[in-house]
């Protein structure tokens, strides 16, 4: 029994007009299928079009050729039906609103009735563990906390799909690892489908059920790496042998290798001793 497909991308390409320079092909011939409940990372070098691909899924930009189907509908309709929530690299909170007012925003726009709305806000703030900060203003929170508000907001109206564009890129390594665990917890609790853009290989491997490796511009999906690490994934996972193997596999794929990995035992131990480089 296969899960229903939440995102279907077929023959997608995106070309931009650059003033005075002609055209720039960001993406070329993308085919991708994401099933319900999956956690899929898009990883690739800078400029490979992964953020553009995310925006195409969200109908924040239009394809040049090909189709994007979300929840069985064309992407524009999925957007109007509000089938997804999005988290950017910066929190993009409204600084004139309190934390709870920021989470309230999408529910106001949808016109949810007050009782349901307030219950959802409380629930979401509990999910990201920011209940005591609900009346604070964004400037009073750290970057990591602001991102958590942004995640709470993205999930406020219970979308089927969560799009995340390098959400932890601006955070330090330790906060980032902690946020990774939090995202996985939220994913496990809500059963939502996640498309996650990153340029951190460890992050992609730690979080995902599958990693889509992209080439440099014009971006293509060159490999899909299944991540068969057991769940729940913890700090121990990051230190396991299989994790190293998969990180290496993704790294090789990014470098254009054929994916077959010969492990050098001695090198592995050295890397383990020095920490993952």
């Amino acid at each position, binding site marked *: 029994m296969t899960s229903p497909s939440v995102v279907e991308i077929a023959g997608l390409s995106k070309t931009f007009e650059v003033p005075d320079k002609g055209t720039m092909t960001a993406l070329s011939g993308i085919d991708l299928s994401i099933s319900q409940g999956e956690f899929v990372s898009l990883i690739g070098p800078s400029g490979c079009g992964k953020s553009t691909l995310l925006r195409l899924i969200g109908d924040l930009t239009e394809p040049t050729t090909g189709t994007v189907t979300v929840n069985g509908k064309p992407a524009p309709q999925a*957007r*109007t039906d509000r089938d*997804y929530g999005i988290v950017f690299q*910066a929190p993009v909170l409204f600084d004139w609103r309190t934390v709870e007012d920021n989470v309230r925003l*999408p529910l*106001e*726009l949808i016109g949810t009735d007050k009782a349901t709305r307030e219950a959802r806000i409380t629930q979401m703030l509990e999910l990201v563990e920011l209940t005591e900060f609900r009346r604070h203003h964004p400037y009073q929170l750290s970057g990591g906390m602001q991102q958590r508000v942004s995640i709470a907001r993205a999930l406020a109206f219970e979308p089927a799909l969560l799009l995340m564009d390098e959400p932890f890129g601006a955070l330090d390594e330790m906060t980032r690892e902690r946020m990774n665990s939090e995202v996985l917890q939220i994913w496990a609790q809500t059963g939502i489908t996640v498309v996650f853009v990153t340029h951190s290989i460890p992050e992609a491997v730690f979080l995902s059920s599958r990693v889509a490796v992209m080439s440099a511009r014009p971006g293509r999906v060159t490999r899909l790496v299944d991540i068969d690490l057991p769940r729940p994934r913890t700090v121990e996972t990051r230190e396991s042998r299989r994790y190293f193997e998969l990180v290496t596999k993704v790294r090789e794929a990014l470098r254009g290798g054929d994916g077959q990995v010969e492990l050098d035992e001695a090198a592995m131990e050295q890397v383990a001793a020095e920490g993952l480089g």
Partner: protein
Amino acid sequence: MTTAGHAPSRRTQWRRIFAVVAFLGMVLVLWEGVKFLGGDPWFVNGEKVWTPPLSIGIATDQNLPHIWSIAGALAEPWRRNQEDSLFIYLAGKALYTWREAALGFALGALIGISLATVFVHFQLFERALVPYVVASQTIPIVALAPMIIFFVGNDVAAVVVVATYLTFFPVTIAMLRGLRAHDPRALELMRSYAAGRRTIFWKLRMPASAPYLFTALKIAATASIVGAIVGEGPGGIQEGLGRAILDFNQTYTTGPEKLWATILVTALLGIVFYLLVRLAELWWLRDRAPNVLT
């Protein structure tokens, strides 16, 4: 660290007040110092107490009355056989002028916000009209005021129009920037909610533009007073500061202190109006990030 809405430390506040007062003190010392060096002879109770060694043209009692002469003039009746002191007289006129200015301020702000809103949503209008908006301000208002009186009529309405004319411009220009000052990703966020233009305007653009609006309103506050005073002149409005300036200008040779006193009161009016707007700004923007409030 100062944070929005939280006042800077007591010490900083006192330092600021001290700095302002100290500067004023310096100006006064300089004022009297120049008169000491090269003004007219100093008299106390009719007796000559000091003859300045030099002769500096601007420092005569005619051009630069003594500080205490100005202060004294404010305390005395504004005219022979009148009961009110000059200060009370000028305060009444200042209030009258302020009401005209405040109305012009409000109308100018409304027009400025409306114009900027149209421009932001219809770029064709922006490209076509902004040059004319700018050009409107390059025409000297002293030339335009009589024409406005001619069209609108010889009453307070004309003065309000002049005040509006000077205030709508800074508001338009600032809001043009302010309505676009949000993070571009905020626009993507709103699109992800399938929000329409009107929702985006009220929930995103307007709140994000508040800091810019207040900057313009601070400028507009003083501009509206200038507009009101200039507008009162040709209109022959009797009850405002414009009339007082013209009157005391005519009697300058016999009583220069009165004109200086009027200038002082006019400046105070501008400062008070500005401070009112500033207080409103501090309150409205109290919860935003610290660097928004300077």
